[in-house]
């Protein structure tokens, strides 16, 4: 350390282990972390789909129909199914993280994590319901 600590000038022979490249595959909690991080790829891939949808919308009814047909490609459906699971995983881990980042206090006592996360889930349901309503409303 800086001037404040006088450590030995004789450096003994320490043994150092290197973290293996596949460190995250060794333990379930690390793997979960890696999967959570990879959910971002599916977030991005959905945005690409959204951009294609906007492009198709701009291209007129036929182009849009073609886009809708393309979405029915079984391979794409499978990929989207996997993607859906990943973004769901993202949403759940994200909402559960909020109470960590914000220590919400009520009358001096810190609220339990569940209570802080609960409004997230309520809002999530509401937003999802609103979107379904907007899209499915007849006429």
């Amino acid at each position: 350390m800086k001037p404040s600590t006088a450590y030995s000038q004789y450096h003994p022979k320490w043994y150092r282990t290197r973290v293996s490249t596949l460190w995250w595959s060794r333990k379930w909690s690390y793997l979960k972390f890696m999967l959570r991080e990879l959910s971002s790829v599916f977030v991005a891939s959905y945005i690409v789909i959204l951009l294609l949808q906007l492009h198709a919308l701009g291209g007129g009814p036929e182009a849009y129909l073609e886009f809708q047909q393309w979405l029915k490609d079984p391979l794409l459906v499978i990929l989207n199914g996997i993607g859906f699971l990943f973004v769901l995983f993202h949403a759940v881990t994200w909402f559960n993280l909020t109470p960590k980042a914000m220590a919400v206090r009520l009358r001096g006592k810190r609220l339990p994590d569940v209570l802080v996360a609960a409004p997230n889930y309520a809002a999530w349901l509401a937003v999802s319901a609103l979107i379904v309503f907007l899209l499915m409303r007849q006429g």
Partner: protein
Amino acid sequence: MIDSLSTEMPSHDVLLVGGGGAGLRAAIAVSEVDPDLSVAVVSKVYPMRSHTVSAEGGSAAVIKEGDSLDEHAYDTISGGDWMCDQDAVELFVNEAPREMLQLEHWGCPWSREPDGRVAVRPFGGMKKERTWYAADKTGFHMLHALFQTSLKYRSIARYDEWFVTRLLVEDGRVQGVVAIELMTGRIQAITAKSVILCTGGCGKVFPFTTNANIKNGDGMSLAYRAGVPLKDMEFVQYHPTGLPFTGILITEASRAEGGFLLNKDGYRYLQDYDLGTPQPKPVLRSMELGPRDRLSQAFMKELDKGRTLEGPYGPYVHLDLTHLGRKIIDTKLPFVRELCLKYENIDPVSQLIPVRPVVHYMMGGVHTDIRGATPLDGLFAAGEVACVSINGANRLGSNSLTELLVFGARAGQAAAEHALQDKPLSTGIEAQAADEKKRLEREFLHKTGGTESIADLRREMQATMEKSAGIYRTGALLEEAQASVAELKERFGRVAIQDHSHTFNTELTAALELSYMLDVAEAVVECALHRTESRGAHQRIDFPQRDDERFLAHSLVSHRPGDRPKVEYLPVTITRWPPGERVYGRPATDAPRG
């Protein structure tokens, strides 16, 4: 092989042996006297591992309305069975509030009143509520606050995990130490103008103790070997409530918050031992809030009457916290609950805690004056390693944490002033250090063919001490112990060392620690044998009365190589409180009016 004695000796103005509460407080005190003085903290463990970390209940200082310094002094003196030096106690209670407030300013997370002032709790032997606390991890928080604050001072250099083996003394003054750097095995002399011993106590001399593994009386032995007398070594405190197998401390605060001690019949047995009458709520200086010596002695008498319980690790009684309720336990005693759940698999909210007396604290130690100075020029001591003495024959709970602040600071100041005198290093120091290196190699590092095992010797020593120098003692048993310890010391000369490596050799340190403990054991037994009276924590079955005529005096035991130690006496300093009867649980006649 590396050449393990470097020719260049690092040099400092003040060197501390030990980096616990007292050591860190002293280090900061030196820096405050003069930031240009270089301070070295030499510790066999990283400072935040020191045993201060384990203190639980609290730290006493007068802060509240309705309390007074005189009452704190009186409680301390009567608690110590009039063996305390009263000038030291007065100074101690005077400086205690300032030191505690200073620690508050350094960030110690004291528990608080709703209005933001520090909270206090009752404690054993204290007539007023004056024990500051940080839930039930007071020592932990104090140590970490001190350690973290010490990081701010550039002049404090740390030698973490350096094990001191000898004080360098030449021309009648201490001039440094020899230490082993554990990481490399390098044996190194470090010189200094003042040396402060802050190595803590020696609970590991006994088998059942709340003390950590590192508490081996290192500093006591270093001083003893350097010719400095140890004071009042016969006074060993048993804490009445430790967990049976591990010796883990269940804090006195659990009784202060209202816990009961129950024998096997569920009876609050303390009422049979002149400690007052049972009340549902805790009463100060009464029953469970009596002093530790009296409570531990009551346990032994219950044991004699066959009214204790018997478990796989010996006899025990019950500590009952169930009537306190979960809320009090979780806010005031969370660590007690954590420890019971973890180590006994019981929940104090609904279950009784098995407890027994365990060795907790050494009232005695290196003889110092009220500045922390020992009779050896340049050598100071503070904290549990020292005997100032404010604890007399029995320390009151929550005085020790305060003591390490008050006398840590005082020793730091005195050592700094001493260092400013700037005497030159004696020429013989280097040769002495070289001799010490040779001794370590001859006796341990290069030694082959030993026959005695460190663990066996240690276990025999502990068993001897428990049997002869425990809560109750007799002359016959102490004489036996005297012979046993002498024999153990002789056998230690044939100790086997399998490990001859330099890197982090913990077999070497275990052997050195055992040699320190044997010195302490010798001192304890010798003093206990000479004190033919009963006082505080020293109870002689063959001499059951207190004898103020002959023994209102500190014992001073000095090392004589190749011979029995020498025991002398030094009168106790009495200023305003003449010796009287120790009264708990009923009104006393000579107590100051509160």
